[in-house]
């Protein structure tokens, strides 16, 4: 039996007058994976998430949750925990009261919410009983995580979850996402922070000017940029071995090592070939990070951003 995708987006478009915010976007999110929706500010990420959550109507195409077409306030939303833009609450009520009222508003019983589990994750301690207007942005974000975890949702939709947070809070939120994904949650995370996506996600969807310009694993995407830097004990033998491998288009010196341009194939194949020939491998790393691949993709799509690259390789 084929597993129904948790999210299925088909030909999704959204126009605001003459402006096309989202243009014919299609992708799927499968169970248990962590997808990063990556794109510059204004690329259309939040609009996609709003349509997915039934807040905005698509101009064309459909969004499905658990196989059902999303409509405003559709029943499948009860299986989703979402944070779209910043976490927001009723400011004159306490954090606890906000959680209780939000959960009960849909007629769901508080005893089904796993409130204690959500509160433990939020880690607000006694502050949970203070009015939300006294919270810092980081506390609101943590309370937002507690809210989206109520009822143990199967899918988490997170829109720029670390926006406006200080480095310590960002780290806390990332660790929290890591714990949730380790526990088996399916996650769709929108961000323009490449490191966030690289550290958190298994798959990446790159959006630019409202269009989906890449869809694949982080490894695939970095692989598009194509280079691998290696350091070995015998450079000349390594050069001969690697040059003979299928998919390798060039091998050249750089610093104390070699840079291998890889058209097809996996980095792991290079390592296996070298080790198989008895060549000691000290270092193997992609010459480019996700940031380089991302900027290359934007440049391909005639994005206004300059296609500068940041090399991870010693020069």
């Amino acid at each position: 039996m084929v597993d129904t995708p948790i999210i299925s987006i088909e030909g999704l478009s959204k126009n605001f007058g003459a402006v096309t915010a989202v243009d014919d976007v299609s992708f799927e999110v499968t169970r248990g994976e962590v997808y990063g929706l990556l794109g510059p500010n204004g690329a259309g990420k939040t609009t996609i998430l709003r349509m997915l959550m039934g807040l905005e109507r698509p101009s064309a195409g459909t969004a499905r949750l658990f196989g059902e077409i999303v409509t405003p306030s559709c029943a499948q939303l009860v299986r989703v925990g979402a944070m779209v833009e910043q976490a927001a609450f009723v400011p004159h009520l306490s954090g606890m009261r906000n959680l209780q009222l939000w959960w009960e508003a849909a007629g769901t019983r508080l005893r089904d919410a796993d409130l204690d589990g959500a509160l433990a994750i939020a880690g607000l301690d006694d502050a949970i009983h203070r009015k939300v207007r006294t919270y810092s942005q980081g506390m609101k974000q943590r309370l937002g995580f507690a809210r989206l975890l109520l009822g143990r949702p199967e899918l988490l939709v997170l829109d720029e979850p670390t926006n406006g947070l200080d480095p310590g809070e960002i780290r806390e939120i990332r660790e929290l996402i890591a714990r949730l994904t380790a526990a088996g949650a399916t996650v769709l995370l929108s961000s323009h922070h490449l490191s966030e996506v690289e550290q958190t996600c298994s798959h990446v969807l790159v959006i630019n000017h409202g269009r989906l310009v890449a869809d694949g694993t982080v490894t695939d995407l970095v692989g598009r940029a194509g280079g691998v830097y290696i350091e070995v004990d015998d450079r000349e033998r390594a050069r001969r071995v690697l040059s003979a491998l299928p998919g390798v288009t060039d091998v050249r010196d750089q610093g104390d090592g070699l840079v291998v341009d890889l058209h097809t194939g996996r980095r792991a194949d290079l390592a296996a070939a070298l080790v198989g020939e008895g060549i000691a491998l000290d270092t193997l790393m992609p010459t480019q990070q996700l940031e380089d691949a991302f900027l290359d993709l934007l440049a391909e799509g005639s994005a206004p951003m300059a296609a500068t690259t940041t090399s991870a390789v010693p020069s």
Partner: protein
Amino acid sequence: MIALLRTEFTKAARRTRTLIIALALCGLPTLIVVAIKSRGTSDRGGDHGDGLFRLASQSGLLVPAAVLSVMSGFLLIVIAGTFVGDSVAGDASWGNLRYLLMRPITRGRLLVAKATIAAVLIWAATILVALAGLVAGVTLFGAHSVTIPSIGVGGLGSFTLSEGALVTRALVGTAYVAFGFNALLGMGMLFSTLTDTPTGAIGATIGVYIVSEILDGISQLGQIRYAFPTHYLGAWESMFTENTFSRDMVAGVLVQLAYLVVFGAAAIIWFRRKDIRS
């Protein structure tokens, strides 16, 4: 629906603003009654409001009508407009509206719940004014029947309202004043869905009623004034000043219902189609 109503009521009732309004609605009628007491009964009356005031010192049972007559012209409009205009736009301005709508809560149901709570608060405010007036009035003037002067076909005359009649008419008057905000409720809900700025929605809601009152005062506008939401708002006072249940009260009820249905339906249709971007 009950859970949603409870949620919305808690949000509205726990605001500091609501408490301040409640205190003001208790305090102002008390102040008015004290002012009447200190003025004595020698001052001349003017229009119906002043007339009711002049007579109010005869019996505390007439004070609810007197304070409602004064406060329903402006202050209660402002308070009702605040409750209604803020209902959706307030949640939107906090950013909380999108989180409510990311749950399986239909937009129509949410709007009806918010309108219901706004109506409950409006009724509570009106009843509070009448109750505060009653308590203060009976305390200072006692509870007696009232003889009210009137102008009839045969010239000057008078009629007497017993204690029971005064209480009954105060109840009907209070209900009529509260019901008179139904047009405001319908229009305010629409304004509240049109903007994410509560002050804008509140201002528009109050503004429409104020403009309606001003235009209603221009007799040259003729019969068109009968369709204004504020035209029949004072019709209930004839129960005290002319000893009649005016047919205008029926017309007032119908006008209020028409506004509520038309603007309420427009609000629901608009809100169901609206892209939630706040």
